[in-house]
């Protein structure tokens, strides 16, 4: 594994009142809001698909996926296009706020908590200033959000 002094860049974003981060190397681009085409027979957290320059990209309603209240932003929301575990997806967030540079050693494994939609998708915690940030485990998030074959 990489040594503890290595700098990790994290892209911070807002979901309502909550703050999360993702590893910046997994982010392919940021897109302004575009209404996804809803997928038939899809779970509620799968908002639909968008046309990403000719590729059809699934878009996740991240707030619903993590069990948070739905976003109010409407068309002011942003879509983070991320890729992990060989899978690409768009994540709907309120706004992208910052890029934090953190030493890998400063990332702590999340404590074991009652398993809900959120904790299984958090790979690390860290303090930036006096604020706690949660790093999303994109691989876990994306690989568990396939539509079950009916």
């Amino acid at each position: 594994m990489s040594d503890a002094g290595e700098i990790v860049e994290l892209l911070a974003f807002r979901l309502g009142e909550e703050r999360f981060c993702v590893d910046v190397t997994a982010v392919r681009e940021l897109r302004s809001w575009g209404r996804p085409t809803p997928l038939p027979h899809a779970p509620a957290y799968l908002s639909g698909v968008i046309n990403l320059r000719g590729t059809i990209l699934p878009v996740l309603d991240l707030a619903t996926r993590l069990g948070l209240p739905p976003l109010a932003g409407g068309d002011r929301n942003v879509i983070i296009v991320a890729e992990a575990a060989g899978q690409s997806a768009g994540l709907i967030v309120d706004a992208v706020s910052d890029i934090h540079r953190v030493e890998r050693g400063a990332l702590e494994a999340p404590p074991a908590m009652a398993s809900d939609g959120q904790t299984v998708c958090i790979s690390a915690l860290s303090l930036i200033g006096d604020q706690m940030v949660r790093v999303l485990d994109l691989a876990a998030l994306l690989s568990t959000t396939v539509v079950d074959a009916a």
Partner: protein
Amino acid sequence: MTDRRDPMSELKAGFFAECAERIEQLQDALVTFGESVGGGGTVDPEVINTAFRAIHSIKGGAGAFGLDALVRFAHGLESVFDLVRGEQADLTSWQINDLMRASDHLADLIDAARDGITAPPGGDDILGTLSAPASAIMPALEASPLTGPWTLRFRPHTALYASGNDALFPLLALRELGATEIRCDVAALPDLAALDPEEAYLGWTLTVSAERNETEIAELFDFVIGLCDLAILRKPPTTNAITDAPRTQASETSPTMRVDLERIDRLMNVVGELAIGQSILAQSLAEIGLDRQSQLAERLDTLTGLTRDLQDSVMTIRAQPVKPLFQRMGRVLRETSAALGKPARLVLEGETTEVDRTVIERLSDPLMHMIRNAVDHGLESPSARLASQKPSEGTITLAAAHRAGRLVIELHDDGRGLDRNRIRAKAEDRGLISKGDILSGTAIDELIFHPGLSTCESLSNVSGRGVGMDVVKTAISRLGGRISIASEPGWGTRFTLSLPLTLAVMDGMVVSVTGQMLVIPIAAILETAALRTLDRRAAGYDDELVRIRGAFAKLIDVSAALGIRRPGHLPDNAIAVLTASEDGSRAALIVDAVIDQRQIVVKSLRGGFGSIPGISAATILGDGQIAFICDPGELARTLPVDRNQPATVEDRKCQMPAR
């Protein structure tokens, strides 16, 4: 993210891609070899050399990657071929079958190495049967004499000319021996004023091809020993010259380049986008009232033409010959015929016919089924064949050709033909037809495509599980293809497949359903009609049928079937699109409006979506919107299940704020 481009894995991928080509060469050579031996003719030594080279390069590459099991088997096989080179005339066709089996095993080992799984056993047995008789005749040829290519430096002394010799003689002899390159070294030549005509100034550097050994070369200089400087150096082999067999035209092909499939797909996507962008541009210009005669319109036409050309060119990049697919079928045939004790050979025609790679991928399973069926059900046992004056070995012909913009594949066996009495009896038994029905021979033959009708009495482990031809037919229909059958009792059966050349583009009808665009494949559409003009009948709990042209079709509320809104009252001005699925069942798809009919670029929904009932793929419309392509046959089947699913898209929209 971690580094995705591990250079070693890229090299490995290249090696495995090359292995696939080598296996193809090897099997080609074995087939030619088998034909010459079978026909009693002599074997072109180049054929053996090709096979030998193929194995040798696989061994070389495998060694570099430390794939020991592969190296060991390839080495053993290589030794066998070395022996074959010496006593080819004595090979029987059964030994060739063993060689075929060996090449299959080699392919298995390569696959195992590629996928990182344990190598399949049995290699030693195969090599044992192959080398046992041969090794008795010829001692191992393993230690090949030291061979070149050679580099020679030859510089005659003045004494050479003085003794009446000529430098020209050894040079001419060398040319005969296969010197490929002769260079004269004039560095020592002085100015004309300083030149002594009796002095020797010139030297030569020569390259001599690989198959000569040092003594042969040195012999040529016997007469001039001591009268010249002579150096015979073994040229360090270049990386790709790892074989000591001569390379001739047999291995020459037009130059090609290996390209990552992903890159081609990306190119396809961009070109598709370009086409969409171009059509948006044309649409917008038409909307602002562009004069069709203007220069701008003319230039737009040029752009349209170029875009279409570009699209066609990209399609041809994706096109591949059916040969590897057909060769895989050769293996299926060998294994099936060995398992059933029915000797058979596969004759391939038109292997160079090209078709989109996705079609090739998806043809593999149905063809495999059909080959097995042909051997199992089609061919008689050898004794029965001899009794009916046929050669004991059956012949199965697999042919491909382009016809009228489609790929046509024919599979013919020279077996007994379909047993119509038995098919008929079975169909009556299962209630598919009734006793009194009068059916033509072809109509009876076509019954084998019906689900659950298998003609083989005893279930063999090869085919005959009753999932035969109907599965094949479904698979072919999924590809947008058709299958037909022609059988002549006593003389064999011929299946004809007709398939689209590409799955990347298709003709579709764009319809709107509750504000969402959908595409229905034109190939499935029989006609369209206004719903209110149709004769609707209630059937069952809440199914409805419509009667169109003397036949009933199931009415499908597409919006409800896809879960966009709840089933309920259909709008009065709705349109019914009448479709026929591959099993002949009809459905009337109820949509709000027909928007357009056009060629669309098919985008796969695989990867992250699972399978969506009723939806086969998606496309991007002229305005950049995504439209799903529906599969009418699937839609008809999924409807009953959906009624129990509470959440429709509209429900979800309402639910979200309430959470």
